[in-house]
């Protein structure tokens, strides 16, 4: 297979905007001030005003700016260019229709503090999406307020904390242990910590599942507030003992939190509420295809059982006849987690996604996503070690075990994939697999491209045996090579200053 370049680079050296700035260039025009002017000293006295004339802020024309960003954009890989198999990130197609409807002026120009009677469409949209997510998760209480997955997690564990306080009163203070599997996302323990819990780690079995014995042991130690579980787990395997896991936690008085990062394996097939899960967050930017945007914005709805619903963040949207309103009077609520109502623009996109797929399409997408992952597994398991035997769901994990003997590690395989025209998979996560490569193709990849990916991986496996240096030196086709991250962290340069160029000269 011939190597193709990832992206065209019309210019390799688009400087920072500060380095392109020329005094006197302008990139905007405002209408003339149409009110009679007041002396500025009368409005705001000089000692409260800035007097630096915004020194250092760039001066560029509109053309400069359009070229600047368009050129920089060509240095990025993206879903629209091809398969982006980042495991646990669900890099699926972002529909243009969703972008279009989110920009309808009646949504985009609506102020969050406009009267409720003048915002009925937005409130209804929130309500309708809540209803759909309740049906999809089997959990009837929904808040769309959290801004991202980790924010939804924090919301979820705070709900658990308040529910325990109510259930056990003073005794609740003795229940501050949150169980988190060793395969969990780092956000899980970090969120548990923000809710004042101490984290205890549960071991995984050699099948990549929760170790039931260890779980019971930890429960016997006492003080358990709950469990934060990703299902399918971060190695892509469904927790076959999920009912038993939930029962075990419930028996000791705790609650089960499910990380919904991997819901793309389950929509229309199986519901967390039916498994015994008490509270979950969803990532609308994963499962429901709102764009990842180079790292956000997300939207991390929190869904929970009827019992826990009163603890959801306030306000919530309620319906009375044909009228929608905000309910601020929620004495049980954990409180507000974000100003206003959440990332509304993402809710519009997610609802459009649900409507476009509909009942049959949502399941079809899940099937196609799992099928793609299983197909990749079947085609790659001879060439790469697969640490866990059970059938994977929507993502599959491999390790570098077969390649590392030749000095080729996961990082090298990932970088070499770039030369073959693909974005690398998630690497070195979860932490329980040495040299983990977590691959999630999603449903948005056709067979031809899956086969191309398989060919690339097989080719790299061959190179690792025959010409390991080629892989270790990758990527060979990008604008820049591997960057010295250690020095970057030791001597952090986090902003432009006029002498930045001189540092570059010194380094080269």
């Amino acid at each position, binding site marked *: 297979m011939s190597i193709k370049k990832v992206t065209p680079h019309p210019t390799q050296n688009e400087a920072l905007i500060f380095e392109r700035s020329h005094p006197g260039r302008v990139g905007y025009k405002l209408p003339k001030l149409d009110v009679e002017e007041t002396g500025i000293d009368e409005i705001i006295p000089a000692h409260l005003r800035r007097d630096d004339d915004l020194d250092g802020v760039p001066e560029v024309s509109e053309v400069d700016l359009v070229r600047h960003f368009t050129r920089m954009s060509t240095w990025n890989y993206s879903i629209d260019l091809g398969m982006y198999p980042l495991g646990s990130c669900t890099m699926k197609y972002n529909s243009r229709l969703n972008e279009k409807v989110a920009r309808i002026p009646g949504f985009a120009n609506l102020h969050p503090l*406009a009267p409720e009677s003048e915002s009925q469409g937005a409130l209804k949209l929130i309500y309708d999406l809540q209803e759909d997510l309740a049906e999809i998760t089997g959990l009837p209480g929904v808040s769309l307020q959290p801004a991202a997955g980790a924010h939804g997690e924090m919301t979820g564990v705070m709900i658990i904390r308040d529910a325990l306080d109510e259930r056990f009163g003073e005794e609740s203070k003795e229940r501050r242990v949150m169980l988190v599997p060793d395969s969990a996302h780092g956000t899980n323990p970090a969120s548990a910590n923000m809710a004042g819990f101490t984290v205890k780690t549960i071991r995984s079995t050699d099948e990549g599942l929760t170790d039931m014995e260890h779980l019971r042991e930890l429960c016997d130690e006492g003080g358990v507030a709950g469990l934060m579980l990703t299902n399918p787990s971060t190695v892509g395997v469904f927790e076959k003992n999920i009912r038993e896991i939930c029962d075990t936690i419930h028996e000791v008085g705790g609650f089960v939190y499910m990380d919904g990062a991997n819901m793309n394996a389950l929509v229309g097939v199986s519901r967390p509420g039916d498994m015994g899960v008490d509270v979950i967050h969803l990532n609308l930017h994963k499962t429901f295809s709102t764009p990842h945007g180079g790292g956000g914005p997300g939207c991390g709805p929190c869904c929970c059982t009827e019992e826990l619903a009163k603890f959801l963040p306030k306000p919530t949207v309620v319906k009375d006849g044909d009228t929608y309103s905000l309910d601020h009077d929620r004495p049980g609520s954990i409180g507000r987690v974000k100003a206003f109502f959440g990332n509304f623009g993402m809710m519009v996109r997610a609802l459009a996604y649900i409507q476009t797929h509909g009942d049959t399409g949502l399941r079809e997408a899940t099937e196609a996503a799992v099928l793609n992952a299983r197909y990749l597994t079947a085609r790659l398991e001879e060439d790469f070690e697969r640490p866990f035997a059970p059938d994977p769901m929507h993502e599959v994990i491999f390790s570098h075990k077969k390649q590392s003997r030749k000095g080729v590690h996961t990082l090298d395989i990932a970088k070499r994939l770039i030369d073959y025209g693909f974005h690398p998979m998630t690497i070195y996560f979860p932490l329980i697999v040495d040299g983990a490569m977590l691959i999630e193709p999603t449903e948005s990849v056709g067979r031809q491209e899956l086969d191309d990916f398989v060919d690339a991986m097989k080719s790299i496996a061959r190179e690792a045996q025959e010409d390991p240096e080629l892989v270790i030196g990758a990527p060979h086709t990008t604008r820049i*090579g591997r960057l010295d991250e250690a020095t970057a962290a030791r001597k952090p340069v986090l902003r432009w200053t006029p002498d930045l160029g001189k540092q570059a000269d010194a380094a080269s």
Partner: protein
Amino acid sequence: MRYIPNSPEERDDMLKEIGLESAEGLFRSIPADVLLGRKLDVTEPLAEPEVIAGMEALAEMNSGAKKTSFLGGGVYSHFSPTIVDNLIQRSEFFTSYTPYQPEVTQGTLQYIFEFQTLVCQLTGMEVANASMYDGSTSMAEAFLMAQRVTRRDKVLVAETVHPEYIEVASTYTKHGELEFDTVGFDADSGRIQESDLEKIDEKTAALVVQSPNFFGCIEDLEALAEKAHEKGALLVVVVTEAISFGLLKTPGNCGADIVVAEGQSFGVPMSFGGPHVGLFACRQKFVRQMPGRLSGVAYDEKGNRGFVLTLATREQHIRRDKATSNICTNQGLIALAATIYMEALGRKGLQEVAMQNAQKAAYAKKQIAGIDGYKIAFDSPVFNEFVVRGPSEAVSLLESISSENGILGGIAISRYYKNRPNDFLVCVTETNTKKEIDSLAEALASAG
């Protein structure tokens, strides 16, 4: 389903190749008692024109989006150059993710670096991160950071900080042994009550103040910094109207230690409250206690300059429960919009737009102050928002000018401060024409 490349026939072939009869086989690792076994009770699939029609109909019900508006209070109507929304729709920006692989994400890493620099320049601070969810969560994170930096457990927050921000911060901090006290405001000036600053003591981690504050009044940050620093506390400055950076003395110059702001004003649609973007900046010496991502300069073997995510040992994916924050996904694309806005307006435009806001608000203030029965509630200098005290209850007064005159005249202060029934917050930006301002004044005159 048009978003799935493989046809049903191709999928059947693939199933056979992996030894399965049907799609059901894909889910055999799921115990039967947790399989749904029925269709989801959501709509049947809608065609593109049907989705659009449905969404248009919902949008149509938002009459508030079409009216002349003087609403502010943390979300502002500003002009956004056409290129902002156009450029963020480049596939390479909006369909990429967190720049974990720097060789194929330099576009994202470089604009984040530019964003960080611009935030530093506007706030007068030394270091800024790659963005937070919004202003409110940025402030909550600043509380936690101040606690870490000072190892003190009390925060004093001004009552004139956006009330929803205070609500968010109290949710974030309620399990972290952080004591929370408030500083009142002077009834005439609308600024911090100086006598309340005596509450700052050796246990105080930070004094938190918004400027311009929720009432629009500009605080004397230099004096407040001095008071906080005297007791070894930090000054945390909150800004909800980022356009004010173009005109007001920077918090950094006034002695602030942490600055958090809502960046929505920089070219981002109001969108019923989100997605917006949180700005977070601080002194260099605190950088290792910061939440969130940072893009920094790095060089490859040949000496080529590039950018990488750096100082990641602060973050959850490395430090887990000891991380400075649980934040992972932030507001990347909105930070890009804000970056393009700041660069398009540039050195001159950021000053001009700020000046227009101040001038138009000053004009509106004069017009309204001249109406019988109305007065300006506070006498401090303001940027583009001010509180008006009307002759009757603000809620019904505002309802009446909305239905009679088609104007959203402001936010009733009683929404947040129960003992101020007649007060309402008016915001005037560069998007409000003289004609609109005059209509507001006329409407208030006839409603009063």
